């Protein structure tokens, strides 16, 4: 496995440069940069695609681009379909001897473009078995258009289309378990990662890029604007998500699941701490909504237990 040493990384070129227009504290560019650093270590050329969303908008404001790799953007619903076409063309050209480079393909998408409108094209690309890695940066709502709920928005969170007030208490539905849906395609590599564990995230990216066939990494991407916390706390938020088991870090290699981080015995933090840290859950801490916190805790526990059981 190639290096993830800080000393080596410091000498490498970021394939996503600074100077883009992401909000202060946005975890998205951190995720993208780490993944691209890892992909680069494979000694292969990287070609990317990206769905419409925060990262697409803030990195490609014409005539500038923050990408140091060939990058294609099409529409909102088709990052996976677009990279399918590019990857197929590459294979055809390679077969004819018109390309000799070793090229790896990475498709990026936010949660809106992956969990919701892009799910169909993602599923199709996985099923066809294109040789690519799909990276979802999951900031748990449509942040680019002004914080609308998505399939990835957790239960109880406030968004501009899942209001919190005297009648409603934020999003009433649970978060869609996209990683499990993707894993059900039976592809060779699926992982959930987080930007606070950089080495884990990079190793997962290395594995995915090195693996033949479709691979998928779902990365939690804390959003200060949408989640309502201070910009300097983004990595803390990511850490808290893992420590409360709201966002477990795990990978599934050829069907074998392994959990990459487990809180020490008795040290699993209550979900209350996670909810308390963000303004989007503020309304839950009222007598009327307090019971929801327990419901959310139970749901987190249930999923965590199921994960532990599956690993065993």
């Amino acid at each position, binding site marked *: 496995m190639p290096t993830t040493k800080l000393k080596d990384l410091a000498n490498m070129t970021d394939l996503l440069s600074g100077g883009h227009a992401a909000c202060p504290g946005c975890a998205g560019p951190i995720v993208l940069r780490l993944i691209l650093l890892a992909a680069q270590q494979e000694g292969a050329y990287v070609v990317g695609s990206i769905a419409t969303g925060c990262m697409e908008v803030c990195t490609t404001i014409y005539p500038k681009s923050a990408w140091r790799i060939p990058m294609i*953007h099409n529409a909102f*619903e088709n990052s996976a379909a677009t990279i399918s076409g590019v990857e197929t063309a590459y294979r055809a050209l390679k077969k004819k001897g018109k390309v000799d480079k070793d090229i790896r393909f990475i498709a990026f998408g936010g949660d809106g473009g992956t969990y919701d409108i892009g799910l169909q094209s993602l599923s199709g690309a996985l099923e066809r078995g294109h040789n690519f890695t799909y990276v979802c940066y999951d900031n748990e709502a449509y942040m680019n258009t*002004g914080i*609308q*709920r998505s399939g990835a928005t957790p239960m109880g969170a406030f968004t501009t*289309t*899942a209001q919190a007030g005297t*009648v409603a208490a934020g999003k009433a539905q649970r978060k869609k378990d996209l990683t499990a849906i993707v894993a059900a395609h039976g592809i060779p590599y699926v992982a959930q990662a987080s930007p606070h564990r950089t080495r884990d995230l990079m190793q997962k990216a290395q594995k995915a890029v090195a693996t033949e066939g479709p691979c998928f990494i779902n990365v939690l991407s804390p959003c200060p604007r949408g989640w309502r916390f201070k910009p300097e706390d983004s990595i803390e938020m990511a850490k808290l998500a893992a420590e409360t088991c709201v966002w477990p870090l795990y990978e599934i290699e050829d069907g074998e699941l392994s959990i990459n981080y487990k809180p020490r015995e008795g040290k699993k933090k209550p979900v209350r701490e996670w909810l308390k840290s963000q303004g989007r859950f503020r309304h839950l801490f009222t007598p009327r909504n307090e019971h929801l916190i327990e419901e959310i805790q139970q749901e987190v526990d249930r999923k965590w237990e199921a994960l532990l059981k599956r690993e065993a």
Partner: protein
Amino acid sequence: MSGNEAAAEGAMRAGCRFYAGYPITPQNEIIAYMADHLPLRGGVFVQAESELAAINMLYGASAAGVRCMTSSSSPGVSLKQEGISYLAGSELPAVIVNISRAGPGLGDIGPSQGDYFQTTRGGGHGDYRCPALAPSTVQEMAEFTYLAFELADTYRNPVVVQGDGMVGQMMEPVALDHLRPPRPHQKPWALTGAAGRPRNIVRSFRGVKGELEKHNIKLQEKYDEIKRTEVRCVKIACEEADVLVVAYGTCARIAREVIAWPPRRLPGRVGLLRPVTLWPFPCRQIAELAERVRGVLTVEMNAGQMVEDVRLAVEGRCPVHLLRRMGGAVPTAREIADKLVALFG
């Protein structure tokens, strides 16, 4: 309030009780306003997982007899076209608000009228038309959306409110008291449970040979009736005009300012004809004026789409010119005045 909010408010006052939408700039205020208010007024708000899902939710809601609406902006409305065609084919009333932005493709979020063809020619597959209302003020965003529901139910047809990023985002005072709850339309065709009556069938599929042609003829007769009865336009200073400007929506707002300028800055008396319905198009009204003006200037925020309808209406009675801006650019009053002077001065 903003134009987007006014559209949402007008819809609710017209009795809209089902809304399905999907985020896209510059119309997100409609979704947010609907999410805020519709459930409190006994309606259902759904944020769909895509534009396709949203428009097809309308197919279900409308078939059940409920007043329903979706909104989007140009790329999103492109995605909805299949659903709109199905609504038209099945004769289901629904309202689609398009706060259009500049294209083609992802384009930009600046205001545009580049969807004129898509809106007035049907947009999706097959022979159909949707009445299209073009507001140029925030007040009209509310009123036209309200009116759209009445037209939709009257003709059992989808109706488009064709705004743009400018009228959607701008804020103006709005009078709403006159938008009272409308008299409910009888919908004997709706799927409300067939107990005690023969069953209703809502469909666009007609597999029996010859049946589809008959259905199409019926649709065309309906469209002819709409053309006879629902043409709407506003004429300003047209009676004495030597020169006519034709513009709608945001462009009409700007042109209205120009025609009020002192005559020394203009080539004679300039009138403005503003189509309120883009389809049916005010052909007769334009033709009448074309008999006695020196020429027509069409002002559009696209490459020149409505100008084709203006030329069809004018039929060579006088020269028809075009002032166009594209890609999110908006013509200024001075640009329009300068063009008028250059052409007719």
